[in-house]
């Protein structure tokens, strides 16, 4: 008993202060929002689009689909002019799929707005989510799980992952939706009472990720109405937290 208390004392208080306080330390090489310097591109160069494993770059316009992007930086390495870079901007979540198509001229992304008033009143202080893992590699799940550890303490915002869809206000979905999970996902969604929200986390759930186009997967969540898209492969926990907090109106207009 004495040892436990002593260890507790040594381990200290560890919850990050975000969003009120400073950001937690982020890795130097963090791959956040990509930036294009189109003026550096040689005319007709398509190297970036050619090496992209998931065809996330439109060859002609160089518009980038952040929903498909694996943040792998293969395009950065292929670009002879150094026109592409990945910034450390962790804020990537949006409410509409089309907001993930980032054109090169665009300086800012249209980040996720909070829920509509009626839903915000219901879920703003208490959002219970059922997580469904529908294929994928379990890395998104791991970094969703991390939010429940003491370092992030998701519970302090009233957000919690619950064990039954009957207890949930919505689903948090990861994975490309394999053929073998399609039915289970649909049934779980149906079991959640109205009104409900759907949050998709990671490149797989948004557009199929590295499995896009394979016969055994469904290229992400296509059949359910999605309220929040959190891109990344997998998204950093801070990206996920930022998205969830925007949805419930806890980070409104913060830049």
């Amino acid at each position, binding site marked *: 008993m004495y040892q*436990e208390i002593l260890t507790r004392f040594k381990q200290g208080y560890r919850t990050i202060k975000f969003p009120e306080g400073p950001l937690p330390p982020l890795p*130097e090489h963090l791959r956040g929002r990509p930036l294009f310097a189109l003026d550096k591109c040689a005319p007709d160069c398509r190297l970036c689009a050619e090496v992209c494993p998931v065809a996330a770059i439109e060859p002609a316009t160089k518009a980038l689909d952040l929903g498909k992007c694996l943040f792998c930086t293969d395009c950065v390495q292929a670009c002879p002019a150094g026109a592409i870079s990945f910034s450390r901007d962790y804020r990537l979540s949006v409410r509409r799929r089309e907001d993930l198509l980032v054109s090169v001229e665009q300086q800012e992304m249209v980040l996720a707005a909070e829920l509509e008033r009626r839903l915000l009143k219901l879920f703003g202080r208490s959002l219970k989510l059922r997580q469904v893992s529908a294929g994928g590699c379990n890395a998104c799940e791991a970094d969703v799980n991390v939010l429940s550890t003491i370092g992030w303490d998701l519970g302090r915002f009233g957000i919690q992952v619950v064990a039954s869809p009957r207890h949930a206000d919505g689903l948090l979905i990861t994975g490309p939706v394999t053929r073998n999970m399609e039915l289970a996902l649909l049934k779980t969604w149906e079991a959640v009472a109205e009104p409900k929200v759907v949050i998709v986390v990671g490149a797989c759930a948004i557009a199929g990720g590295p499995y896009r186009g394979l016969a055994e997967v469904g290229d992400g969540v296509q059949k359910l109405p999605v309220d929040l898209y959190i891109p990344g492969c997998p998204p950093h926990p801070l990206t996920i937290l930022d998205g969830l907090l925007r949805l419930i109106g806890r980070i409104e207009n913060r830049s």
Partner: protein
Amino acid sequence: MNQQSAKLAAIANGEAISLNEIPFLELLDFQQTISSGVNRGQRVSALFGAATAEPELTFLYVVLADDEENHLHVGRTEVKGASFPSLTPHCPQVHLFEREIAEQFGLKAIGHPWFKPVRYCHSWTGRDAWERPAEAAIQPAVGDFYRVAGEQVHEVAVGPVHAGVIEPGHFRFQCHGEEVMHLEIALGFQHRGVEKALSGGPDARSLHLIETLAGDTTIGHTIAYAQIIEALSHTQKPVRAQALRGIALELERLANHVGDLGALAGDVGFLPTASFCGRIRGEFLNLTAYLCGNRFGRGLVQPGGVGFDLDQRGIEEMLRRIEILRKESSDAINLLWENQSVMARFEDTGRLAETLAVELGIVGPAGRASGLMRDVRYDHPSGIFRFAQMPISTYDSGDVFGRAYVRWMEIQQSIAFIVEQLKNLPAGKVRLLPGALQSETLAVALSEGWRGEICQVALTDAGGRFARYKIVDPSFHNWFALAQVLRNQEISDFPLCNKSFNLSYCGHDL
């Protein structure tokens, strides 16, 4: 080497062999060679099919690991028609391999004691081993399950969607009261078709499919893949890259082992260690992110070397952080062994006998906790492990405690290894670009992921493209052990037993 294994070709981990140098055996001879090898202490690392130009002819390849002699044996045979006699009754550890061959190539394994699909998907050949109509959708986990009948016997079905943030799988318990008489696990919900998608590669997507085979084992799997490409293209990777790969592999082990010990503590309601380890696990992931910007090591291991280097400042920062984490993990984890109520729940729960572990071909900490001396880093070392030897950590109890304690021993060794490597990081480049792959060649690579042996095998065609890419995640060997240890166990001990194995669904389902 006696006569039997001389029938196969001996190669080392990370080596390639031209297809026409691989001995061809008649089917029965091939099977006898496997079972006599296994009887002498070898293991089946991989056993898989490969299509041929003729639909009625399927090749089978085997990779047997000889841990004592430190090499691998490779051989092949052919199956004519739509069936083959099952080897499983004589050699239980091939049970799932045979089901997989049946599912992928539509070949019936005649006499297989539990002949069911593995991942519930259509075959690659248009032939179906269960004669299901080609047009009909295949429903996962639908079909016969092992049933126990009798008064008061009841069945508990769980999944595919579970209560926590966990991957999908379906579990059927046959119970008498609280006691589990039998557990059957049906997987395949995570099946994405990765092996098929790798055929025709390597291409822009290949590495990313490997990185996401099991997201918590990105480093383990990408090291095996890189070794395959390097073997097939005769690329000598720089030693600095080898050391950095070793550091990344051990960081991956640390994050997962520490996380598992925390989760085990959580499952027995011991919250101090659960919450400390939950955070410390994240700090180890952050160290991987420090190396490459991604917490799971995406982009770090590249064929020919690594994608990121460390400067002197980086080395010092890593050493500083590792030292803090060494103290913190030690404080948090040692609470477990000193706590009576934790120990009472860990000890004697979910015991896997050594003989059963040998028979089933169990790998990784789960095997070592049942006394098996097997660890790729020691038995089949490649890369940095040829220079820096890793001792094998074993325990003999085979229970939850054993599996937890082996992890703790490995944590200490991994930390010591990383510190040692960081302090003596060899100078030089970190990457050489590999050239074209040798045609009509087979390459095998093993790496010791945190769950155990990862085995990847590639066969190239006449143009040097992958004709077949085989992946064996450690979970493929080990899921059956979890089902076995649940026998005669309280059903309420399932979460604890499950966590003590912590197997991968996606790595199994591919």
